[in-house]
């Protein structure tokens, strides 16, 4: 075996971790599958001459005949099922990734500040988190729907509002131990302000934890969007999302399974991929597992 010659530019721990991640075959397959599904959801509908909200009254409840243009048939309003599922995927995936991102950013910053500040500020900030944890989720969504007049924004706000708490707690614990590390002391001794220390020293050092947790957060958000839409307090008809498509599908599952299977299958595939990716990331980033 030959010894690696030093690369011209130093490799960060993060680089090395991603290199390790790339060696995980299952996770890489999941990345490819997920990328395909995302591309299909966002580009696929352009291939059809109609949108998911256009009703084709000549073909109401057409079966999945794999015939152009209604490859998987239509629902009982004559809307193309495949296009609706793909458009629903756009909504679900957007909310999933955006929600996880926003919740993650808020949580990371909040946790990093609390953990670094310590003392009374930390105590107050964490008590607030605990109070919010105690809020019943579904009631919160209903309240926010009333506040925002329903719709996607209310749903998004409700999801972010409940899901930033866990990253905040995780990062705060990490930040607390980082604040005691000598390089943070050294930065303070070097006259860095609290803001600079949090942004340049605390947050980057939480990155591995955040990436691992964030990869679990995405399926969680997608799932809770679907759950709420399934209950009818999320995305509303005629706009499609995987949640409300599955809900329509369950209503008709005695007679026509495909209305349930197509959106349900895609949701399951996405969640499975995301979980495999999360698993791969955890394996690559966990320092105890080398």
């Amino acid at each position, binding site marked *: 075996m030959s010894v690696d010659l030093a690369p011209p530019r130093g490799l960060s721990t993060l680089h090395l971790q991603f290199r390790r991640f790339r060696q995980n075959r299952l996770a890489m397959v999941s990345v490819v599958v997920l990328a395909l599904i995302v591309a299909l959801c966002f580009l696929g509908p352009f291939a059809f001459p109609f949108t998911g909200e256009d009703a084709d009254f000549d073909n109401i409840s057409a079966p999945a005949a794999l015939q152009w243009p209604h490859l998987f048939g239509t629902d009982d309003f004559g809307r193309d099922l495949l296009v609706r599922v793909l458009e629903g995927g756009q909504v679900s995936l957007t909310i999933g990734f955006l929600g996880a991102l926003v919740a993650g950013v808020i949580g990371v910053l909040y946790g990093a500040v609390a953990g670094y500040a310590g003392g009374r500020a930390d105590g107050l900030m964490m008590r607030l988190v605990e109070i919010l944890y105690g809020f019943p989720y579904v009631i919160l969504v209903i309240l926010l729907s009333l506040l925002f007049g329903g719709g996607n924004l209310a749903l998004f706000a409700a999801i972010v509002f409940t899901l930033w708490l866990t990253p905040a707690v995780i990062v705060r614990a990490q930040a607390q131990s980082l604040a005691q590390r000598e*390089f943070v002391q050294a930065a303070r001794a070097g006259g860095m302000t609290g803001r600079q220390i949090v942004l340049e020293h605390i947050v980057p050092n939480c990155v591995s934890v955040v990436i691992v947790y964030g990869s679990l957060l995405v399926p969680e958000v997608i799932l809770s969007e679907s759950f709420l839409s399934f209950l009818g307090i999320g995305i509303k008809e005629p706009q499609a999302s995987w949640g409300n498509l599955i809900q329509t599908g369950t209503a008709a599952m005695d007679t026509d399974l495909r209305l349930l299977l197509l959106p349900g299958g895609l949701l399951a595939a996405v969640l499975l991929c995301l979980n495999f990716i999360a698993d791969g990331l955890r394996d690559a980033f966990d320092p105890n597992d080398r």
Partner: protein
Amino acid sequence: MTASLLSIRDLTVRFRLPQGQAVAVDGVSLDVAPGEVLGIVGESGSGKSQILYAMMGLLAANGRAGGQVLFQGQDLLALPPRDLDRVRGQALSMIFQDPMTSLNPYMRVGDQLAEGLIVHKGLSRAQARAEAVRMLDRVRIPDAAARARRFPHEFSGGMRQRVMIAMALLAQPRLLLADEPTTALDVTIQAQVLDLMADLARETGTAIILVTHDLGVVARLCDRVVVLYGGRVMEEAPAETLFDSPAHPYTRGLLAAMPRLETALTPRLGTIPGTPRSGGTATGCPFADRCAVRLPHCATTRPALHELRALGSGRRSACHLSEPAP
């Protein structure tokens, strides 16, 4: 003596603990002249590091510092945080004990060095980077320009400590605080790192306070030595005379416990019997319990730090034995 750069007056550091108060530093006064290398020696728990932390405003959350730390005419303890940030990292900087944890593992070494220059000197990123590379070169990091783009985990321990020295000296501070800078290093490179630090400080006229429990280090580098025990100054002397004629019984004990070439054949090193008292303020001399030549009133009356004219200039000790008769 020239006007001092730093003068600490009656510094106390206390920690609030569930079971009461712990006094880590108990009325320490000392001065540092510009360009001088002052050693603070003492065993673990003597409060030597806490003096530095108090000066830098880095005490743990339950710690409180009292007294005065006059640095270039400003009392650091009374300074608002914003002004303290300006002093720290510019006129005053610090090297920590463990180079393995003193560098941010997620930041390229050059960027970490440049950070301070951007913040304090308002240099552009490119200028600061160039300056950082120049400094890395001066601390003899081979191929500094390439190394600056690497991460700390790609450096050895000795190299990291040299990076820390570079970082501390980059802003050309007036005073450098070094908290046992070589304890975490291999003995074979300790001397090399210390000499480098002292040489660079001499070139730039930077004064150093070197906290250590290694008397060999003190003998090698320091102009003056303060011996600390139980948070109090036991003895203060120019380095060369301290080793020849230690005045305080504690200093004598410390020196007896130091291995020397000429005594290498004696079977055992000396030790000081007993352990340091923990917590609380002693009414008398903190060393009284362990002192071999204790007098009856040692445990009840606190000996004051007094001049020892007979032993030469600049020598002071806090022991009843050497006190001039009242």
